[in-house]
Each structure stands twice: as C-alpha cells, then as structure tokens.
C-alpha cells in the first residue's frame, strides 16, 4: 500500500503525547524483546531503535485492542487478527497502566465517540446543539448514528 512516508516521518518528529523506552516484541514468530523508544503522536505509535532519529515502524491505532498481559506487560493487537500481538514490557506496573490508558484513548474513533457523547449531553442539558456556533453541525463525522458491529 502506498503512503506518504515523508509526512509520516515528519509526524514522528513532532512532540509526543507520550514517549518512553520500553522492551518491544513484534508478532513475528521467533521475535524477541528489544529495547525501543516508543512515541505516541496523534493516533500513531512510532517505534525507534533507541539511538536513531528515524522510526523503524509505525502502528496506526485504529480498530485495535490494548490488553494487559502479565505484570508490566501490555499488548496491542488488531481486530482482524487478534492473535498477532505487539508486546510491550514497561519498567513498572504504573507505567504499564498509564500506557494502556493513553493508548485506549488514542484513536480517532475514540475521540469521535467522545465528541458525540458530549454533544448529546450538552444538547440534553441546554436544548441547543453546541456545534452550531462553529457551523459544523452537519458534518458527517459528528453525527449521532448508531454504529454497526
């Protein structure tokens, strides 16, 4: 699949929501835990070799599951292939929990659901659509439609 790599690399250089050195294992058979710098920017998790400026990879965090594995360890897997897990071992349980929380909220889809929820709540409380003042009430992405499974 073609993609605009230059822009993605540029995104990887921007200030991160969250960044840390962790041990990471890819879902490939025979993979071992390796020390990596992971960086959360918008809905991407970039991972770097610790001394390099350019990431070796990026994970788009949509349609994914963040699961607590054993102590200090969490995994990211994707809905269509739940057995293929990217594993991350943190320095502490606290750090592990923080990453799980941050990654769960990192998707565009999560934000969209939050927005729809707030919009609905405000509308219930005030009778007014809070998006009207911005002229974006009719935008497809903000609509209160029921989501299909």
């Amino acid at each position, binding site marked *: *699949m*073609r*993609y*605009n790599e*230059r*822009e*993605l*690399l*540029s*995104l990887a250089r921007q*200030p*991160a*929501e969250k960044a*840390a050195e962790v041990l990471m294992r890819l879902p490939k058979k025979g993979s071992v835990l390796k020390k990596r710098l992971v960086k959360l920017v*918008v*809905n991407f998790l970039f991972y770097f070799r610790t001394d390099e400026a*350019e990431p*070796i*990879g*990026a*994970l*788009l965090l*949509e*349609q*994914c*599951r*963040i699961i607590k594995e054993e102590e200090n360890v969490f995994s990211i897997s*994707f*809905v*269509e292939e739940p057995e293929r897990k990217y594993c991350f071992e943190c320095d502490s349980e*606290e750090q592990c929990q923080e990453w799980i*929380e941050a990654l*769960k*909220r*990192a*998707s*565009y*889809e*999560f*934000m*969209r*659901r*939050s*927005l729809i*929820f*707030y919009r609905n709540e*405000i509308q219930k*409380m*005030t009778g007014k659509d*809070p*998006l009207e003042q911005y002229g*974006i009430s009719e*935008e*497809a*992405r*903000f609509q209160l439609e*029921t*989501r*299909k*499974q």
Partner: protein
Amino acid sequence: MKLNERSLAFYATCDSPADNAGFLYKRGERHTAYHRRWFVLKGNMLFYFEERESREPVGVIVLEGCTVELCDSAEEFAFAIRFGGTKSRTYVLAAESQAAMEAWVKSLSRASFDYMRLVVRELEKQLEEMRWGPAGGCGGCRPLPGSWKPKPSGSERSPERLLALPTVLPKENGCAVWNNAPGADRPPDTSSCGGYDSEGNPRPPPLPPRRRASSSEAGSAVVAAAESPSIFCRLHEQYGQEVARLRQDWLERRRGPRP
C-alpha cells in the same frame, strides 16, 4: 519504515463510518494523467482504491498537517492537498461536480486528529462548566452580599483567603446545579477501544484526561485535575458551608443560654 498495512487495509474496508466517500480523479506523481479512483475518508486517513469493489486500497494519504485548497488546473473541480515540508508532494485531485468538490474540500480540511481534538476539548470544557461552574465562580451566581466577588482566575486561591467571607451568606447560590460527588454523573469507563463492548452496545466514553505535550507521565492526570478551574467552585462551596456552620455556632455561644 514499516506500517501495519494489513490493519490499515482492514480499517479502510471495515464498516466503521466513513467521513466521505466517492470517485475522484487523482493526478499521477510524475505524469500529468489523472486516474479515476474510489476514495474513502476515515478520520485522518484518506484511502484510495482502484475500484469501488476493490478489497484493498492502492494507497493512503495521512492527512495530519495538510492544507486543502482549490487549485488552478486544466481539470475542472480540482483541489490540492498540500503539506508543509520542502520536498513534500502535493496531491492534486478533481471531483466530478462543483458540489462534490466543495464537500470534499470541507471534509478534508477538517480531517486532522488535531482538529477533532480541539473540538472535543471545547465541548468537554463546556460540559464541565455547565456541571461545575466556570472558572472563578458560577456563571449564574448573584454576587455575595458583603461585596466579596470571586476573581476569574481563582484556581490558585488558598483556603485561608476563602475563609475571609462576608457576614451573611446567601441561602441559595443561584448557580447551576452543582454535584459535589466527583464522577457521579460521569459516563462509565470503556474497557476496550475499537468501538464495541462485549454486549455489542456502544458505551459512552469517559471524559478524556487533559493531555499534555510533554512526555512526563507521573501524576499528569492529578496535575491536570488540580489545574481545572472547576475545583475552585467546589472548594468555595465547601468552605462556605463550613464557615456558615462555624458562624452559627459562634453566634449561639455569644447569645448565651436563653432565659
């Protein structure tokens, strides 16, 4: 750089809502020929397929940091997606009608994660202000008699200053409904991302924590809560009630035993 392409392809074709979809002509990178492609916009990702029925996209344009503008082209209804870097490629697309072009330009220019985050934060702030009152006091409050007026930036106020309240406190504060139980009417937490709970019902998401640009992790949620202007209102209420009780006790003691 590796990308989770299989998951990307799934995201492009799964039935999560698309923010826009339709045929567009895409100008080739080196050649000026246009190719008709089926485009699907989901979040900040613009996927394009060879055909509408194709099972996998040919490519994707990550839209973060782009600007969208109309452009001069021999092709009618053309517009461009531009990025900031010096060697960045500009994607020139053309719609099949004026209306389609306008709809695409609108939806693409608001497609970034940053934009969505901005709107979410704005609504989150509005909701908090409605529940807890705006910074430094309540929007609907009458000023307290004795001329103590809360200042707009009240979050640094120390408890000692709050005790210097006027002699008579109003019985009702005239403010919007305050709920002093934190989290009482907050939505339940989600236990997974990706859209669906175990029963298949969409759960309302929790209020997201205030995000910080720095990479420091420890206590960021706690710090964020302390910075919230709504904390001041709750403290004001609590100290006000305490003061009222103390004052009542003091008055009764002063009056002494009744004859």
